[in-house]
């Protein structure tokens, strides 16, 4: 199964779990539709593009106020909600919901789904063959990716192992 189909499956499961959702779409951080459930194609593209714009502002806002990376965005209109959740490093999950939705549940379910979608998208990006051999893939974080000129920053060799070394065994303390 392709990543698109799996992401679409996740969107459908999410809508089944939260019946007050009126639309769901996964988009790349730069505003392209990855998968959508409901909403016509044109509408979805429009929403994805707007999401990317809102995401840019939201990211700058969290940066400027020292709140770290973007996690989620909730907008309430008179007739419902629009919610956007970060999904991995390069995608977002955008949901439309009725005004009477249980926002607590929306957050719980959408955070889980966005984590799954993020994993699917990130994995698919890693699997994609790199057209430039001998080069490591660019970091996928969108707005913060460094300019391409110049050599890539070099990670300090083995200075920070991903997993800390296991503590040496001590005889059991009383």
């Amino acid at each position, binding site marked *: 199964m392709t990543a698109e189909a799996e992401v679409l499956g996740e969107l459908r499961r999410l809508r089944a779990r939260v019946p007050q959702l009126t639309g769901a779409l996964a988009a790349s951080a730069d505003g392209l539709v990855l998968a959508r459930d409901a909403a016509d194609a044109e509408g979805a593209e429009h929403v994805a593009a707007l999401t990317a714009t809102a995401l840019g502002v939201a990211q700058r806002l969290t940066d400027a106020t020292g709140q770290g990376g973007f996690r989620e965005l909730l907008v309430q209109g008179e007739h419902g909600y629009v919610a956007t959740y970060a999904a991995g490093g390069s995608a977002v999950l955008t949901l439309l919901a009725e005004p*009477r*939705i*249980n*926002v*607590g*549940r*929306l*957050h*719980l379910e959408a955070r889980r789904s966005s984590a799954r979608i993020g994993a699917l998208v990130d994995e698919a990006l890693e699997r994609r063959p790199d057209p430039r051999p001998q080069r490591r893939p660019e970091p996928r974080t969108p707005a913060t990716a460094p300019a391409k000129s110049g050599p890539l920053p070099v990670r300090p060799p083995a200075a920070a192992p991903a997993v800390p070394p296991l503590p040496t065994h001590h005889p059991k303390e009383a």
Partner: protein
Amino acid sequence: MANTETALKEATTIIDGAIGAALVDYTSGMALGTVGGGKDLDLNVAAAGNTDVVRAKVRTMEMLGLNEEIEDILITLGSQYHLIRLLRSRGSNGLFLYLALDKSRANLAMARHQLRKIEASLEI
């Protein structure tokens, strides 16, 4: 008159066997405040989930044509009681108090009585 935080603290300290308490807005499913809970009982999950319980019961009553108000809802588990008390004073419509109790340490009649008193003293 107690604010949300003190009322919830009171609920978890004076009521025997209390594990956690939350004040929840069931129009949104979000908790206005939580006390206790922890790793074994995520009160934000409980707030969202029990919002659906309350909404379902309110809808059922409407469908049954019962022109009544829900005072409280009791859920009995193997080792816990979960008590939901809907607030009815002016200005606190659409809110409920949620209290999780350890069944072996709790006195249900006393817990309901104390929760009623806490509701009366609560100011939002």
